């Protein structure tokens, strides 16, 4: 099922990161008032890297991803900040310019492959169209041959035959593979996967995650994985952003987030997981309350009303800062001291993981 023999991960060129998102803010005007769906997100992505954005519904993770490829542009949206692909600014590009970026440089796959594929065209025809829309010099026959090759590359058996099937003749897992094949058709350098396995069974999920990993290693495809599932994150991600109410509350390497989490919200997420490889606890540790409405955000720290460790300073909006002297790349938005955090998360038992090694 592996796509290409594993080669060394492609490293980024000297000219800075592949994708840089800087102080991205996305607001929507709604009937009930202005909603700041994304409020100051910063990250960089290198070739061959998998960045996971984790959060609950309304955290701004999907809006962040959609804004990168210009899908949130509309009369009622207000976008600030910068998105640069190989140094080139995307937020100010015209729709026509963006059209050539989508697909050929950044591809996106969605949660539900049934609604993302057109039911009245064969899978092959949809891939052919994607190729010819960007490369008009490629002939129909040639594009058809490429479609077969791509379907084979993402692990669809008998691609010569299946290329002429309609989406309804594919299973859920095969549809997601077909979506990925379509995304890869123009050899993009960035893949954005928005909950790519949420609608799939676990055995199929494992196959799709393996495929994304193979593409990431084999082709150096940089990937932004958007998910609510920390199990999926642990399987494939290199770095993690944890989002809450439009803001990044913690950001670090995979091991930082799982073994030395700094923000109480991250503790809560990790603690509430059910783990098959551990004895079951009598009760699941739970975060009380519900995520806030973006129309009525609490003042100060947005997690404050649900946080068991709230103290006076939480009335101020906390910055996303490196708060661990030994780890300048591990950022979080909680004003407790690192010692307090270590003590509290052990005492409260909210992590469900061993002490950091």
């Amino acid at each position: 099922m592996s796509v290409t023999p594993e080669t060394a991960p492609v490293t980024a060129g000297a000219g800075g990161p592949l994708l840089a998102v800087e102080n991205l803010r996305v607001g929507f005007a709604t009937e009930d008032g202005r909603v700041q769906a994304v409020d100051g997100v910063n990250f960089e992505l290198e070739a061959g890297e998998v960045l996971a954005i984790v959060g609950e519904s309304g955290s701004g993770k999907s809006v962040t991803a959609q804004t990168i490829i210009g899908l949130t542009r509309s009369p009622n949206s207000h976008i600030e900040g910068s998105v640069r692909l190989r140094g080139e600014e995307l937020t100010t590009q015209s729709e026509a310019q963006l059209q050539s970026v989508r697909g050929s440089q950044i591809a996106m796959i969605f949660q539900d492959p049934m609604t993302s594929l057109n039911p009245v065209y064969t899978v092959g025809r949809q891939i052919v169209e994607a190729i010819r829309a960007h490369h008009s010099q490629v002939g129909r026959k040639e594009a058809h041959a490429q479609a077969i090759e791509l379907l084979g590359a993402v692990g669809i058996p008998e691609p010569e035959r299946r290329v002429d099937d309609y989406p309804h003749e594919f299973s859920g897992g095969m549809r997601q593979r077909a979506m990925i094949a379509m995304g890869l058709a123009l050899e993009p350098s960035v893949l954005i996967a928005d909950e790519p396995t949420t609608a799939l069974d676990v055995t199929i999920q494992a196959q799709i995650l393996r495929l994304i990993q193979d593409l990431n290693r084999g082709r150096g495809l940089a990937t932004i994985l958007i998910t609510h599932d920390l199990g999926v994150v642990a399987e494939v991600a290199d770095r993690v952003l944890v989002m809450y109410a439009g803001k990044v509350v913690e950001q670090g390497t995979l091991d930082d987030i799982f073994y030395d989490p700094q923000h109480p919200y991250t503790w809560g997420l990790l603690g509430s997981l059910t783990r098959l490889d551990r004895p079951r606890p009598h009760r699941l540790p739970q975060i009380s309350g519900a995520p806030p409405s973006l129309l009525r955000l609490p003042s100060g720290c947005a997690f404050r009303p649900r946080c068991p460790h709230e103290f006076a300073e939480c009335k101020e909006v906390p910055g996303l800062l490196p708060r661990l002297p030994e780890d300048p790349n591990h950022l979080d938005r909680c004003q407790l001291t690192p010692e307090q955090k270590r003590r509290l998360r052990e005492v409260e038992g909210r992590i469900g993981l061993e002490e950091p090694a």
Partner: protein
Amino acid sequence: MTDAGAISASGGPLLEVTDLVKHFPIKSGLLVDREVDQVRAVDGISFIVNKGETLGLVGESGSGKSTACRAVLQLLKPTSGSVRFEGQEIAGMGRRELRPLRREMQMIFQDPYASLNPRKRVGQIVGDQLKVQKVASGKELRARVEGLLDRVGLSPEHYNRFPHEFSGGQRQRIGIARALALEPKLVFCDEPVSALDVSIQAQIVNLLDDLQDELGLTYVFVAHDIGVVRHISDRIAVMNQGKIIEAGDADQVCEHPRDDYTKKLLAAVPIPDPRESRARRDRTASAG
């Protein structure tokens, strides 16, 4: 066929299902429908649910777990087989005969957005069954509904609100209050937390746990998330292609699965621990 009832608890069986079959015909033909084949959604399953315990039903989509629940509850007419509730055969009963039994068996649904009538107020949604079954009316009805709302973590002021005013987790609480209104003995929970956010899932699982302890409820808990099922269940039955292929004590099935399909299913569940999942990947890579 594995007998899910092999390990019995002290309470004695509340529900006995024997050789339950539900086939759906596939019809074809221009003028006259002819049955050309069948979908064997539930293909001869047997299990026992004891009083006060939770039986978890796991399996992938299409394995027949939801159809099995609906056939047991007589929401779908079983093709054949026997369903005994407190010793009484209910398979094949008519609507009228089933009505008093509906009080004893209730269901909590997956999608809290689709399973509540958007035009009814919360008080009506929760209280309607009490009225239909002539259990309570007037002031007493209102008091009971407010008590239920309080019990599931909502407040009595929510009585006159509409479902759209609530978040997903709160709506699921409304669904739970409705299911508990008639003080049922057996509650079928069909994917009750899979549509909810991670931080809310734990709240609902804990609420179901508390209600079971307090009211002595018996659950059949259906979900594809094996971690959640194992947390809440005493025993687990694994379904694949309409059959129960393995059943037993929850920890036993999860830690020492015997059937190859169960092993495959468990091995695919992501481990939320990077070191563990790397170690597992290395193991599978070296194994083949």
